[in-house]
């Protein structure tokens, strides 16, 4: 089951000094009256508080604090019930009926009813990839009574539970009906959920500081916590998210004891943190993350499959990982699109670097030497280093590259454009994903082949891969699902949908005073104690 991870590092650079600081740093947490507070620095500032209208991870993390989910995935990739007491599936597998646990209450005191769950599922269904697919096959969602409701499918669909319990990016959080009825493109007016923490609206400073308080009425499950499933018991009074944009300052503040937790310290700082005493490196997200190189199928030269193939042969993962991470302990070279060491992991169809063939394919693909625009986000450390590596690799096979630096928001705005390069369009951009979002062909947007209508940025279009994805969704036999995943990967590589620049793990850094940090695809603060 979930294990508490953390190797305490005692020896090394001014140990005694560090210990002294830890003691003298902040008043002992146990002093009566003073609320036990965890001060954490997350990877970015929370501005949009609606986890449904945006796939930003900070909004998802916020969601896990104040909302609860019907189902949740555990460490063994199994979907376990969370708010659901028990559920049953009809013989023809078309009707799922769910019954909620006793005594579930929203923060405003109102009990959680079936109508709340149905409204939340419908809002989530409008925006999330797997949600949209589920809604495609759903005939109706009916209330049976306050604690029981039914989901009736049009035809058998294998991923009902996998969708309702998906761990990341647009998690189906349950909100009160009145809030869930907010249109899917507008921020929720109030932050009311039924999760283990309450959102303190008064102290919220967008982009600066977010404060959560323990939800005394929350009734955790009996089972032991495992990933996002099991008991969500809160063991502190308050959690404050502070946004420190300068990582140097964040690391120094952690070493000085001014803060207790840094979610994503850049890898360059890990040696310092290892050396500092009173600080543990906690790799809560063992599944890790992956970088992705994405080409735009609408604009030449990448509208031609041969040129896309050439790119896949020109680049190699080691360069990306060296530039991005540097420290071998945290690199995981792996060419499996659906992430190594997971059920769908396979290296089938993976390209091997071959510059000669790449140059030849380039000629065959009719590359005319026009500069290729690579968008590089300078203010997002993790993906800033990928652009230059691609640029150098493409230059090696004779392509001219225009590496354009911009900030992340500009990139997000510009990649949504389908215009030609001359009118603000683009050719290549890089981004990174939490691996939990890439586990299967349906969830992994990179292999979405719906092109312009409903496809992901880059608008890859391929009927064959769409057929494979549908087959995967409808397949209930796990062995067959793995085989369909393999075929999807082979197809994806042949038509060059994207190139995985390598997996890496990103440990968090926590003060030695914290214990009980759970291993999970998202940074969660239940079960964490502060001595």
């Amino acid at each position: 089951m979930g294990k508490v991870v953390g190797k305490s590092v005692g020896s090394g650079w001014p140990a005694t000094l560090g210990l002294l600081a830890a003691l003298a740093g902040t008043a002992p947490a146990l002093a009566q009256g003073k609320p036990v507070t965890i001060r954490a620095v997350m990877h970015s500032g929370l501005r949009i508080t609606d986890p449904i209208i945006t796939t930003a991870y900070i909004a998802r993390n916020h969601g896990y604090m104040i909302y609860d989910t019907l189902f949740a995935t555990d460490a063994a990739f199994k979907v376990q019930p969370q708010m659901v007491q028990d559920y049953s599936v009809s013989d023809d597998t078309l009707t799922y009926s769910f019954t909620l646990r006793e005594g579930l209450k929203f923060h405003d005191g109102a009990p959680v009813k079936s109508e709340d769950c149905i409204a939340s599922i419908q809002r989530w269904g409008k925006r999330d990839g797997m949600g949209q697919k589920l809604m495609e096959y759903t005939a109706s969602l009916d209330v049976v009574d306050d604690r029981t409701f039914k989901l009736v499918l049009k035809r058998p669909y294998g991923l009902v539970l996998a969708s309702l319990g998906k761990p990341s990016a647009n998690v189906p959080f349950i909100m009160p009906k009145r809030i869930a009825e907010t249109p899917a493109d507008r921020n929720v007016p109030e932050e009311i959920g039924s999760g283990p923490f309450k959102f303190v609206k008064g102290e919220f400073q967008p982009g600066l500081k977010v404060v959560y308080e323990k939800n005394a009425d929350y009734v955790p499950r009996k089972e032991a916590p495992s990933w996002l499933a099991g008991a969500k018991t809160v063991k502190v009074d308050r959690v404050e998210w502070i946004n420190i944009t300068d990582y140097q300052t964040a690391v120094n503040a952690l070493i000085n004891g001014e803060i207790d937790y840094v979610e994503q310290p850049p890898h360059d700082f890990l040696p310092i943190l290892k050396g500092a005493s009173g600080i543990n490196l906690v790799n809560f997200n063992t599944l890790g993350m992956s970088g992705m190189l994405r080409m735009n199928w609408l604009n030449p030269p990448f509208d031609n499959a041969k040129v896309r193939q050439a790119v896949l042969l020109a680049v190699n993962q080691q360069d990306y990982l060296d530039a991005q991470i540097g420290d071998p302990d945290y690199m995981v070279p792996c060419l499996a699109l659906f992430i190594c060491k997971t059920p769908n992991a396979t290296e089938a169809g993976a390209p091997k670097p071959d510059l000669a063939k790449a140059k030849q394919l380039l000629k065959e693909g009719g590359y005319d030497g026009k500069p290729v625009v690579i968008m590089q986000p300078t203010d997002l450390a993790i993906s800033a280093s990928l652009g230059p590596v691609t640029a150098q690799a493409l230059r090696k096979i004779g392509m001219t590259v225009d590496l354009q630096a911009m900030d992340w928001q500009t990139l997000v705005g510009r990649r949504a454009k389908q215009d030609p390069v001359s009118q603000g369009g683009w050719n290549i951009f890089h981004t990174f994903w939490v691996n939990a979002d890439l586990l299967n062909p349906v969830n992994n947007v990179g292999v979405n082949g719906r092109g312009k209508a409903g496809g992901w940025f880059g608008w890859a279009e391929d009927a064959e891969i769409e057929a494979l994805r549908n087959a995967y969704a409808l397949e209930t036999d796990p062995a067959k699902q793995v085989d369909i995943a393999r075929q999807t990967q082979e197809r994806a590589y042949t038509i060059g949908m994207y190139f995985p620049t390598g997996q890496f793990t990103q440990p968090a850094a926590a003060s030695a005073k914290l214990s009980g940090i759970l291993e999970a695809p998202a940074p969660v603060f239940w079960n964490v104690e502060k001595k």
Partner: protein
Amino acid sequence: MSALDETARPLPANDPGVPRKRGRALPPMLRHPAVLAGLAVLLLVGLAALAAPWLWTGDPILLRPRLRLRPPSEAAWLGTDAFGRDVWSRVVYGARVSLAIGFAVSAVSVLVGLTIGLVAGYVRWLDAVVMRIMDGVMAIPSILLAIAMVTLSGAGIGTVIVAIAIPEVPRVARLVRGVVLSVRTEPYVEAAIGAGTRLPKLLVRHVLPNTIAPLIVQGTYVAASAILTEAILSFLGAGIPTEVPSWGNIMAEGRQAFQIAPWVILFPGLCVAATVLAVNVIGDGLRDALDPRTARGVGVR
């Protein structure tokens, strides 16, 4: 554009620009010790920039991810940065960009400021309108104006130069206007008017030469602050394209690894400090040399 919030450069707020006691041609500026020292440093940096390829430098853009963040050694004199690029080559090539920006910004802001200042100083009814616009531009904090322009219109050396220059223009314009207002009542200007000289020739021949001295001084300060501003802009991720090596870029990228690889920031930082110091010292030296009030002249009456 002065890095206004971080590095507001000296504003000769009260310096009327026109030395009161006239009648002396420009004394040789080079005698002034400070100016010599400054010029020496500037020359050194300039030469290094020009002779970059022959100063044992490799390709400043070549990435060698395996050799990332190595300390200064035989192979890489100033160590390597987060992409394994040779810091020595990048600093030397970076000199080209930083110096170019420094002096291009200075030239643009002085030229534009000069024209606006001359017009505002001489054409009275235009003066009020132009000055209100200048106030408006000055009221906007210039680093924000620069960031907005660079972020909104895409990073590129040209954009950065314009973005840094524009907030400087009002100061230059105001300085020139001050000079024009005090010069136009000088007897020899009135004599020229009396002799029928038309406005354009009058401005160029009689008014303009008097603005040269204060403009040179102002120009040096603008150049110094432009180099710093470029560093600040790159630091905030809104500066020159990351591949193009400039001192600002190198420092911006080296910021992350300051505690474990301080050399990436320190060497370009030293270069920026030395160059800005040199340019400022030249500015100060010029101002003292060109301004008879503080120059040591002996008047016997």
